[in-house]
């Protein structure tokens, strides 16, 4: 009796500390990820590997090794079952439109794969650092001082406006974790050492990046 109880306890403790083992679909999701060969296009183990422009251009899809820190779970669950273009242009292209032909999962598979992706966390993201907030400061940096909309699509009075080379910011509020946006701006070398977006560390202060992340996180 005691032995079974202590065995169960040990198993329970081990299961907490094993990476990727959660109760809700993590292991199944990992199996789906492997069976569907998602890893052919997505990196699921950190740290970032790209060092040169050539390295970046050789990639077939965005990194997912910090997906659990980057995305909102509900977004992943819905998107994996019904993927719609996030980047207006094809990945790594500035001439071709994104035709939205991403592999699609069934409802159950999407839930499991999302649960697995949510286990992929980065320690460089601090929980609770940023609350979504539309402040005049954040808005002014996004629109005037740095014109982030130059490469990111936004909605202005119901119409799409802005640039197309970066991921669309329409629906960021549903898609991205505000804490991750702040971490991405403050630690560009950790998440994306080579990208066609400029680094703003040294140009904007951390407090300005916090306002900016809070503002971006409100975009619908």
């Amino acid at each position, binding site marked *: 009796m005691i032995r079974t109880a202590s065995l169960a306890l040990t198993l329970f403790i081990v299961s907490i500390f094993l990476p990727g083992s959660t109760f809700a679909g993590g292991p199944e999701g990992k199996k789906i990820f492997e069976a569907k060969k998602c890893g052919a296009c997505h990196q699921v183990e950190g740290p970032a590997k790209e060092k040169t422009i050539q390295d970046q251009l050789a990639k077939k899809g965005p990194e997912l090794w910090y997906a659990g820190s980057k995305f909102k779970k509900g977004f992943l669950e819905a998107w994996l079952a019904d993927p719609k273009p996030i980047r207006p242009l094809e990945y790594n292209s500035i001439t071709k439109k994104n035709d939205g032909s991403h592999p699609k999962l069934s409802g159950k598979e999407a839930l499991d794969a999302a649960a697995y992706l949510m286990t992929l966390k980065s320690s460089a993201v601090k929980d609770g650092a940023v609350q979504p907030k539309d402040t005049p400061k954040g808005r002014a940096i996004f629109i005037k001082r740095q014109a982030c909309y130059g*490469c990111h699509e936004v909605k202005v009075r119901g119409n799409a406006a802005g640039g197309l080379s970066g991921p669309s910011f329409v629906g960021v509020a549903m898609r991205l974790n505000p804490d991750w946006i702040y971490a991405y701006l403050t630690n560009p070398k950790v998440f994306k050492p080579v990208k*066609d977006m400029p680094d703003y560390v040294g140009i904007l202060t951390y407090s300005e990046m916090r306002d900016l992340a809070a503002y971006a996180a409100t975009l619908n």
Partner: protein
Amino acid sequence: MPNFRYRYILASIAAISLILLSSKASFAAAAEENYKFYCSQCHGLEGKGDGPNATKSQPVDPRDHTSAAEMNKLTDEDIINSIADGGAATSKSTLMPPFSETLTRQEIAALKDYVRKLCRCKGK
């Protein structure tokens, strides 16, 4: 003996010019590679100001780098400053972003030379 020395000198000249040639080639490739990766998204692959970010909704068009008339208004220093610190550095639109934390001073200088090649102009 003198013959040997002559050959040695010839060989070193060949080696040095090879090194010079190849470093010049990689320098040119680097500027073009940087331009296509960082600048073409707005300025277009050929620099005509027609990259995918030049959408109708944008308040200002990216500079046409092939226009000598436009580019002649700028000094080399203006070009370097606008690439490093963005449009604000030359009192232009902030839609031109700052690359001082992304590219090195040498890369920015090489991009200035590349842009000058596109406009075939020297500036003021």
